[in-house]
């Protein structure tokens, strides 16, 4: 098992390097320049001025040198500063990551709380009205774009209740109550969408497993139906569900830019997307690297969870 883990981690290095190269390449090929936003709505920059700022930001070096420089910074865990704000990237990350983590955790929890019971219910009552109802509700969660659901929620909260989550992010430690108020609605919107996918996967895998021989045997042995379902079936059904959850966690950790924008939360999503739109190269490269590394680790954890859930699966 250890050899497997080590091998995976060893293989992860070229993968991450490749990812960073792809992102670096894409960012540099994009038209536009971090400088144009820096100069903010004025045009009276002489070429000399521009050249000077470009030199300061080291954007005049050949690409491979810039890449090498950045790589070196990453290795030494000093990713440098944002081109746009001059703020050290570690500081920006320290501020953005807790927001994304909290949003992700809450959304996951809400999503699972909705999804798994409905999924199981749908499977055990296959093809009945509750199955259809559950499936349609779940899939509707998949069908509405984030930005629409989020806008709808915040607009009508204001109109009907004259209340919206308090704007202006406060961390959980500073003021837990205000923080929870801020996160509940966006987490619910996100969670609703996630629950759809999880619910469908739960339903389909429970259906599969319910047909297995050992389940029928357990039934024939006369154990109470519910115990059969939850104990035997769920554990095996969880494997693909864990995959789905792992995938969703990955997406969540990358940041939900749309929800963050609508609910004014300064998370990783906005940080990365706004950095792309403003061509803030170091921020984009560092963020994507961080997220990529997290995703790769998450994949590994998911695969290890398989082994724990299904003793038949063994890695060498």
């Amino acid at each position: 098992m250890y050899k497997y883990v080590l091998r995976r981690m060893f293989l992860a290095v070229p993968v991450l390097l490749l990812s960073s190269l792809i992102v670096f390449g894409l960012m540099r090929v994009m038209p536009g320049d971090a400088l144009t936003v820096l100069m903010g709505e004025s045009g009276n920059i002489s070429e000399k001025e521009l050249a000077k700022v470009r030199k300061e930001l080291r954007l005049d070096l050949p690409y491979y040198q810039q890449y090498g420089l950045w790589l070196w910074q990453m290795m030494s865990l000093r990713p440098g500063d944002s081109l746009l704000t001059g703020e050290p990237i570690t500081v920006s990350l320290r501020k953005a990551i807790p927001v994304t983590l909290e949003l992700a955790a809450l959304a996951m929890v809400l999503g699972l709380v909705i999804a798994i019971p409905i999924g199981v219910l749908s499977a055990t009552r296959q093809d009945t009205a509750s199955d259809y109802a559950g499936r349609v509700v779940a899939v509707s969660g998949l069908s509405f774009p984030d930005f629409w659901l989020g806008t709808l929620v915040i607009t009508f909260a204001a109109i009907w209740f004259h209340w919206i989550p308090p704007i202006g992010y406060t961390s959980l430690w500073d003021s837990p109550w205000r923080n929870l108020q801020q996160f509940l609605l966006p987490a619910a919107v996100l969670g609703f969408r996630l629950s759809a996918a999880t619910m469908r996967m739960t339903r389909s895998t429970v259906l599969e497993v319910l047909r297995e021989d050992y389940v029928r045997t357990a039934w024939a042995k006369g154990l109470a139906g519910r115990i059969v379902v939850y104990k035997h079936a769920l554990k095996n059904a969880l494997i693909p569900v864990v995959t789905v959850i792992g995938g969703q966690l990955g997406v969540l950790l990358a940041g939900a830019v749309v929800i963050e924008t609508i609910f004014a939360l300064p998370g990783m999503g906005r940080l990365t997307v706004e950095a792309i739109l403003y061509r803030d190269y170091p921020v984009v490269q560092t963020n994507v690297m961080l997220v990529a590394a997290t995703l790769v680790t998450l994949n590994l954890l998911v695969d290890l969870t398989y082994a724990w859930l299904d003793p038949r699966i063994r890695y060498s």
Partner: protein
Amino acid sequence: MPTQDPKGTYSGVSRRQFLRRAGGTAVGLGALALSRPISKAAAQGASPYTEWIPANTKAPKRGGTLTRASAWDPPMLDPRLTQSVGLYQFAGLTSNRLVRYAFPDEASGAGDMSLKGDLAESWSASPDNRVWTFKLRQGVKWQNVAPLNGRELTSADIKYCFEAYAKEGVQTFNFKEIEGIETPDKYTVRLHMQTPNVFVAHALAEPISIVFSREVLEEDGDLKKRLIGTGPFVLKEHTRKVRAVLRRNPDYWDKGRPYLDEYIILMTPDDATRKAAFRAGQADFVWMASPSEVEAIRKTNPSASVQAYHNSAVFFGLAMSQDKPPFNDVRVRRALSMAIDRQKQVDTVFEGHGILGWGVPYMYFQEKPLTAAQFGPWWQYKPAEAKKLLAEAGHPNGFSTTLFYYEYWPQMTSQVQLVQAELKKNLNIDVKITKLDYTTYYGRYVESKWEGLCWGFQSGHAVGLDERTYQYMHSKSTKNFFRVNDPQIDELTTKLRQTPDPKEQRAITKRIVDREFDQVARLWMPYDNGFIVAQPFVRNHASIALRRTDGYGSPHIARVWLDK
């Protein structure tokens, strides 16, 4: 509390009707789908909202917190390196300028462009307008924050600041015009200009010409981290993408002011969320684009005060690559201009509450806003003539071109598509639209190397006449995004800077504008004016021409008070 509407009535829609409609709206999407269209009043163009909210006659109350949900997050705090409204929405409060424009409680109306002293008590120019002397107020203290610790402001500070602006950054163009700065004593600053310029004081009154401190620049190496000035508010906290908190400066030289304890700006990038924040009482004033949006807000907040803002500072138009064919031919430009129905856009897209377009603010050469006729023959909607003119210019079957833009607000997308449809229908010109993100749009536009068309702007902060004429239209200016290249305009704008007599100034400005319209040097398009909507207890927040209180007009907030 009803707004002070000079007409005394809202046009035809009573409060009860508003509330009844509010009930219908709240029922659900199904009901909403069948709700009535935007009120006839708005469609007919009559605006029930006042254009000016004069100073309240009650004595101002001290205290309270004013909150605003803002779309703009400043990229950095360094006034040398950015002109972004994101910074000046509060830098105008932490810092002062030498000279300023009138505040709402001292202005005579929405068009008041008079100068008042800020850090300078008085100023004068030599007869040839090359030497300008400013007498500073005495006893002005920097804010009591390290490293300044409340020391007094002297002329040496001004000299340092202006020289720093001239050395690097986005304001070099203006400040390089200063040949030398003398400080004969602690309270006198004398500027020697390279060429005679009657508008020096106006240039220093621009919202961006704030005075920053030497100590911070020397200690930090830049001004990106700390913003300390002499202004009415101290920047207590600035968390990027979250909020900026400004607290009253207890040592402010204008005794008794500011009235507010605190001004909090919440960074809220989404428009729907900003509206929701106003509704929920988390924001005290907000800008809205159209009458129907205002009506929608008033359904849930019927007592909100509304100011119809007619004189926005940011102008948009159809910028043409007029250094190249086909747009270098004046006939082509005129044809384009006649093929677009501007009035229709004002009536429909802007629901009657829009301006046909302007480049130089009208108050610089006449009393009232331009009427359609005053634009001249090339600005009337005459599609048949346009087609003839285009054929004369050698394009009887039209041509293809491109247009790129950034959606500053949704009405702009409506306009762009209307223009595309009209140019196709009237002139058989195929316009391919590309909607870009802000960076790509902005970078491409100011580089001035693009081809085809662009929905372009003239910068947001400029209040002064010199900015609006010389800086934007002279062929040698680096801010000439519309690529105007007309010797007559060059001559007139240069002459303008040397004309001290106000009447003559107005005459020359009118000639510049006439020439601009005649040559269709810049194809102005209708644009929004918008509305400032505020909670009923906010006082003295009115926006004045070219200075919107929530944006570059932020210094107004020193005079705002809350009647609660």
